[in-house]
């Protein structure tokens, strides 16, 4: 089950690695912890980006794979060509890579639609309710597919 998804802006000049969108899907008390988990995962993204793997098929890969496991979670990452990072935190121990890939692809599509809104200012937080609903649906769908 995905417990948290986040979009983190790219770092250009003064612009920081600031969260553009972060949403947790737990009823528990770990929302803040998930913030930390997502924030820490940026270190891994940085490391992956700075030390790209030499092997061929990974060259233009946007999907970064498993970033790191914590005691309870697994963190997956995805990096768009514009260096926007997508992070998802799951509690599942065994997740198929293809499922995560698929999830991120949908996530990315939703993001592209959201920022294509002419009223959206690039670099600002995404506050669109439609986007939030769409993400929620995607997350639920992922839960069903991975459970099934």
């Amino acid at each position: 089950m995905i417990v948290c998804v986040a979009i983190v802006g790219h770092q250009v000049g003064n612009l920081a690695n600031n969260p553009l969108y972060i949403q947790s899907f737990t009823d528990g008390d770990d929302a803040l912890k998930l913030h930390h988990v997502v924030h820490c995962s940026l270190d891994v993204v940085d490391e992956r980006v700075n030390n790209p793997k030499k092997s061929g098929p990974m060259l233009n890969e946007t999907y970064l794979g498993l970033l790191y496991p914590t005691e309870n979670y697994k963190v997956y990452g995805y990096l768009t060509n514009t260096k926007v990072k997508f992070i998802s935190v799951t509690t599942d121990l065994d997740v198929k890579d293809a499922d995560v890939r698929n999830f991120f692809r949908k996530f990315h599509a939703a993001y592209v639609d959201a920022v294509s809104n002419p009223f959206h200012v690039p670099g600002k937080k995404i506050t669109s309710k439609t986007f939030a609903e769409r993400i929620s649906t995607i997350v639920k769908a992922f839960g069903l597919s991975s459970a099934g």
Partner: protein
Amino acid sequence: MEEYPDELRNPPVALISLVGCPEHHPAISSYLHSQQHPINVLALPDFSKVPVVLAKKVKDSGSEDPPGGILKRDWLLKHRTKIPALVAVLFSSLDVSGGPTQWLQVCSDLENLKAAIRPRNVKLVVVVVLQSSSAELHADGNNEDRMIALKKRAEVDSKYLLMYTPNDVSELKQSLDRLGNVFSELASAHYREEGRRIRTKVEKRGYNFPELHMRYCFKVAIYAEFRRDWNEALKFYEEAYRILRQMVGTKTRLPPIQRIVEINSVAEQLQFKISTLLLHGGKVLDAVQWFCQHNVAYRRLVRVTEAPYLHWEWMSRQFLVFAELLETSSATMQSISSFVVGGTDGTLTEWEFRPAYYYQLAATYLKKKQSSLEISLSMTDNSSEVDSSIDSVVPSTYVGQFARLLEQGDELSMQPLSDEQYVQYTLAEGKRFQDSYEIIALLKRAYESYSSLKAQRMGSTCGLEIAKEYFFLNNYVNTKQVCDDIITLYRQEGWVALIWEVLGYLRECSRKLGAVKSFIEYSLEMAALPVLPDTSITFLGFMESGPAGLPSLQQREHIQKEVMELFGKDSRDGLSAEKSTDLRLTEENPLNLEIDLVSPLRTVMLASVAFHEQMIKPSVSTLITLSLLSQLPLSIQIDKIDLQFNQPQCNFSIINKERYTSTTMISSVQKSQRMEKASSLVLTTNRWLRLTFEIKSEQSGKLECVSIIVKLGPHFSIICRAESPASMDDLPLWKFEDRVETFPTKDPTLALTGQKATQIEEPEPHVDLALVATGPALVGESFIVPVTISAKGHDVYSGELKINLVDVRGDGLFSPRETEASFLDGHHVELLGIAGAEQEGKSQGSYSNINRIQQSFGLVSIPNIKNGETWSCELEIKWHQPKPIMLFVSLGYSSQEKDSTSQKINIHKSLQIEGKIAVTINHRIMLPFRRDPLLLSMVKPFNDADQLVSLPLGESNVLIVSASNCTEIPIWVESLSIETDFISASSSCCIKPGSGPESTGSTLLVAEEEYKKVFTVKPEVDSAPLSLGIVCLRWRRDPGHHEPSTIVTTKHRLPHVNVEVPTLIVSSECPPYAVLGDPLTYFVKIQNQTPLLQELKVLLSDSQSFLMSGTHSGTVFVLPKSDHVLSYKVIPLSSGTQQLPKYSLTSSRYSAGFQPSSAASTIFVFPSKPLFKGANDRGKNLESVATI
């Protein structure tokens, strides 16, 4: 890792025992220790010790009983330190080959030893110590027999009967090598046999209990380690581990909690062994994977509901130990990325190869342990009972088991514990330790490790955990320090939730520490964080947000209220004692909060200042708009705003009219300042408070708003750095929010271009500065440029006049080409001085401080000039070269007396002045009329251009010097003279003015006019070359209407001449004029100055105008030093200017011809005898004409 016993941490080392001949034990021991594969030595000096050491406990219980535990605690230690793999018995060769008594003793020792080692299956080596090499030499048949007998008795192979020669150095090395080889071979054989023996048990399933199975596997692995068979060791450790996993859940006589504890302990040991072996074998990837499996397998094993802390503690230890193992082996590790790439299916990530990751998790589990221990402790209220019952609990025989030690008389016996007792024991143990320090230590290691990996965010998370622990320990100083470090990153990256959490800790720490300033700072920053109402839903789940509370609008408002109360209340206020007595703002302890451009508090108060005009005239007022913005959730009432400028006299204050009465404290200093009143000064969230006022300044230059001081309450003020709207940065954090952005000023253009500074123009000068030049300047003269300063409007104080001479062509007064020339004679144009005020005598003093820094620069201070008065001076400039220059004169002064700070007023004037040469001087040297000396140098075919003019010795030559005015300016020539250079010249040459009438007084020379003067030059000494001297022309500019100008001397050097002795001098004589029809005589006189006879050919040509008598051609001989005169009588036939018959002379000696010039042979013929006025004067006048 430190808590593990040594025998577990280090790989086992083979152990042998030495018996007999104790004096040789140290040498052998140290040798065996230093080997590549060291062997430990158990040295037994005495044979009697052997049975004690090797005694085997007789198993009292039958094999049907279940074993008491899995692994015996001391088994490994026993094999490492007590039970040798082989016993080497040392006999002295003297004893062996000695008498029967000695031999018998040897035999009995050997027998006893054999009996002792047999049950342990320990190998035997017999070493005969050769006491001396001589003894060996004396070996005879008897000795040989003894050896054979010894071998038989010992029942050893002949290769295990060794000789040891300690006395011979070379032999010693060899025998030690031999011993070492045999020992290691036999030890390894022993361990192999032991291992095989137990392995057979495993394979034949010769056990009834899984404990035994596991134990056997463990033993096999240990034996394999003894002989460094790592692969087999690993295999059996893994097997043991697998069996152990299966044992989870099986029932034994142990109570369930202790059972799990035992299994965990054993699993821990096995895991340690496996990880160590894998890591030392360089199989980092395998080790990490193995650890992952281990972690997964045991993580869920929280079966002990009564004591969950035991599980968490154990988990924590697993991670810690693995982290330490990884850290020690990571030095030899290759780059991490190679592992990550190296074929994993993406299940392992970079961090799992880093010790930091494991340290962090160890800390996390320890934290869990701490909290669950606290819960357990809180549930047991009968603490006194706990303490008494578990005093004597000690670790028991088996790994992971505990028992009570009971004293029954002299004997000690172990009594098993019940689970309750055990839990109580662990609780008591847990109370003894402060886990927090351990957690902090672990986190610090993780933090350092992450920092070295440049993983800042991971490090910050660890830092926050550290801070939480310190906070838990009430160590607020450390908490604050750590939080201050990590919040920077969060601020930079704009993670609001994380900032909120950290700020919460910081705020509480400041409150606890009584630091008012930081408490207010953190509180205000928190209150101004962009936690918006709609996003608070996202954060509903926050429970762990620490002292900050939930990030919500309500909480922000609450925090702001709390701080605002602090501002509003006075020390007299009763409320202050209510919450925290330490935090108060008093009159003695006011607080000024500074907010600069990078402060995180910019969200609290942002001050933008814009002048409406970029440039204003002095004393003309302009508008200034001050805009304040705050993101605090509640509106703020401002008491007073102070605007501070770089020109303090412009500072002014804005007072809240509503609260003016309440804030009565306005100091006397402030009273002198300008005060503005505003109807209401309320700052609402995210809305600009715009205030526009007039402002003017007297002082020219930059007027910049520096800071804005906003006063809230009696003792609190915020000092904001003023920002220009044009160059204002976005608000930190808020810039990411989707919010309405407004301009700081109403006018959008001003919002984009407004500046916090404006330029005030200089005051206009009311002074005339006049420069007058009368035409071009002449080279050599002191050219006067009058400068007039007239004050028209205000007074001039402390004025300074700067004068600059600049070459018009821009290349300075030196041009590179002329550098050398100008070096010789100084500047081309030179400022000589500044002279003369006209009226004021007192200003004489001011001339003394003319500061001539350069020849082209001057500085003069001028006296104070009252309004309407005039002051003037004259600049004296001298030209050395004809050059146009630009004269710059600038006057700087102040219009107020005694006001050094007031702005200086500057006026600049410039004037271009041409420099011209006044006169050019020429000269000409002529020979006397109708007298031509033959100079040999003229005959010689020299055609050098630079050949000097030759003058005949002793003859009077004519020198004409002419000076012509080459400017348009009339000049007066005072005199023209020739100065000879040196004294000798006066004797060698006689120069005197011509005999003409001496002109007295000066002569006016207008443009293009020439002034001539004639001199006679008579060389008196035959010395070549001869200097004629320097022409000095003294002249002055025609003053016109002005006063007479100074006299200038222009000098012109005459060229050198040659002086030669003439050989022949031909002079012709004839009357000055002729009358038509009157005969006249025409003489040609030839003087021979040489001591030689001169032959000359004379040729005379006829002339139409004259009738002539005499020879036309002929040859004459002139005697040495004598004259010869040719005379011709001619009658003029026509009047007017006529040519006399021309003669020509040719000197055969010098091959030189001579013909008089046509001028010399011209005569004027009157038609009739002219009538002159005075017959007496006539001859005189004519004479003078002729002789010239």
